[in-house]
């Protein structure tokens, strides 16, 4: 190399003890990957819950009293649950002040046996005339309403049903259905359901093979008039109609969020401990470097290096270490998150996933924190290095 610079000297310094450099990079990478995993997990779950409740598009969800948990399990976790209330509840809900529009769903689980030739699947029956949840999805995927004898699969159901081959036919409670396609992924628990109109459901009920009785519905989704507070209307609804429980949009997934808050505490504690340990490791290694290179620093000071030059030289080393470790940590953390996503039922059940924007933001946070911890750990030794009296360190030789 014909020329030298602060960068080239810093790089040569890093290369002179590759094992030590490797240990530091590894420690930072471990910390950042833990951080990335923790943030990805938390953000993924929280944003997925938010997205799911927004996708449903309802201000209030009305379910039979005591079925709030089951409803959340069905809508967010894709769990096979059944809960019913009389159709007449719709009329009662309609009378509550602030209710603008409403639609209802009836949920049914198909069973294995002679009546059904598909794997057990959740069936969602909706009213196309009032629906504001399924209709927009249907319009996007199929471009037309569902007809009698037709069903459409949610994005997560198609694989189970063997819908690589579209237009297959299935028997559900002795009724033949043509499965005409699949909906796009919505990120809600409804992704794992098979959709049909109420008219079809009536035929199923009439077959007498399903446990469902005529005049029963599972859930009512309501939109409120402008200016009405969902929590307030929800309280009024529960007061006026004791047979129902009400979940406001903001309260959807409360159970998850409470679990998430506890998991977050564990993540926070682990990450803080790992950060302290990494900071201490960086401090210890840079203290050793300060002692080891004190003579060289004295020589450089005698050759005209300012305190700021010494800081710059070591800061470049620290930044390279921090950035390198953080980049590896970001990649490893992202890979780990994707790899382990399937192992966490919380993530699997709620169809959690991160957008590219969210992943980029989390990566930037990881890069910043990893590098900042590295710099923080090294600052004290660097300050000591720059204050060294040149003659004293040269004479120590």
């Amino acid at each position, binding site marked *: 190399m014909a020329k030298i610079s602060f960068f080239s000297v810093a790089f*040569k310094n890093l290369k002179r003890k590759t094992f030590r450099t490797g240990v530091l990079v590894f420690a930072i990478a471990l910390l950042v990957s833990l951080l990335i995993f923790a943030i990805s997990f938390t953000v993924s779950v929280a944003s997925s819950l938010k997205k799911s409740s927004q996708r449903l598009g309802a201000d209030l969800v009305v379910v039979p009293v005591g079925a709030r948990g089951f409803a959340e399990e069905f809508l967010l976790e894709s769990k096979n649950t059944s809960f019913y209330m009389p159709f007449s509840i719709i009329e009662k809900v309609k009378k509550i002040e602030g209710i603008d529009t409403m639609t209802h769903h009836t949920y049914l689980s198909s069973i294995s046996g002679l009546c059904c030739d598909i794997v057990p699947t959740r069936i969602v029956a909706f009213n196309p005339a009032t629906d504001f949840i399924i209709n927009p999805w249907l319009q996007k995927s199929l471009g037309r309403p569902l007809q009698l004898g037709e069903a459409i699969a949610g994005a997560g159901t198609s694989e189970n049903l063997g819908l690589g081959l579209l237009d297959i036919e299935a028997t559900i409670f002795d009724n033949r259905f043509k499965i005409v396609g699949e909906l796009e992924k919505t990120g809600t628990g409804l992704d794992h359901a098979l959709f049909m109109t109420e008219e079809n459901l009536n035929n199923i009920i009439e077959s007498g093979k399903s446990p469902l009785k005529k005049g029963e519905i599972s859930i009512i989704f309501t939109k409120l008039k402008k200016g009405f507070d969902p929590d307030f209307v929800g309280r009024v609804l529960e007061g006026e109609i004791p047979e129902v429980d009400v979940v406001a949009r903001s309260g959807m997934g409360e159970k998850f969020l409470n679990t998430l808050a506890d998991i977050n505490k564990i993540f926070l504690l682990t990450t803080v401990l790992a950060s302290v340990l990494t900071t201490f490791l960086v401090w210890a290694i840079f203290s050793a470097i300060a002692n080891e290179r004190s003579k060289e620093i004295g*020589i450089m000071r005698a*050759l005209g290096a300012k305190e700021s*030059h010494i800081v710059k030289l070591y800061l470049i080393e620290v930044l390279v270490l921090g950035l390198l470790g953080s980049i590896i940590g970001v990649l490893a953390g992202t890979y780990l998150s994707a790899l382990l996503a399937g192992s966490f039922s919380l993530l699997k059940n709620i169809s959690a996933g991160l957008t590219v924007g969210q992943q980029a933001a989390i990566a930037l946070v990881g890069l910043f924190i990893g590098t900042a911890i590295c710099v923080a750990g090294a600052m004290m030794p660097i300050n000591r290095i720059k204050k060294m009296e040149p003659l004293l360190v040269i004479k120590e030789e």
Partner: protein
Amino acid sequence: MSFLHIENLSKTYTVDDSTFVGVDNISLSINRGEFLSIVGHSGSGKTTLVSLIGGILKPTAGRVLLEGVDICTLDDDKLSEYRAQRIGFMFQFASLLPILTARENVLLPGIFSPDTKTDNAKVARDLLEMVGIGEKLDSYPSQLSGGQQRRVAIARALLNNPDIILADEPTGDLDEDTEAEIMHLFEEINKKKGVTIILITHNLELAGKAQKKLRMTKGQLVGI
């Protein structure tokens, strides 16, 4: 006024409760281009004196004036600039950075100097040629002999075209032949480049080659 004027310069060190005198009220004037040697026993204060002149040590009392400017009043940044631009240091040990090649070691003071116009790469090559190790440009210090390392250090001291070279026992651990070669280099640099050289040595014979010879005892100059 002389080029370098030292006025009532003193330096005392305090270790625990004891005080040691390194330099004791020294006054001295040195002209530009002069070759001065200072001899004395270990602990007589020679290194302390050149360190004070080089601005890597602050005096307890007195002044060091270079062309009328008291370097003792300069702040750390200005003092660093003074060392980078006007002083060339040579130490009594191999002072090359082991991670840098001979050429890179010579170039090192350049990154601390605000002068970015000079083509330091060419200057470094010329300097290494001048000190006789032009073929060792890309050798690391561990691949060089003691004498070659001293030559690199001389080239490094000359990179920023300094006014003064402060050489603190630069031939201390070298054999006689190499010692003579290094001394010859100093004489040439002094004559051809007009650089003021202050050489500290134990060796009376080497000291005798300087234009002016001083002796230090217990922090004081004697025998001027």
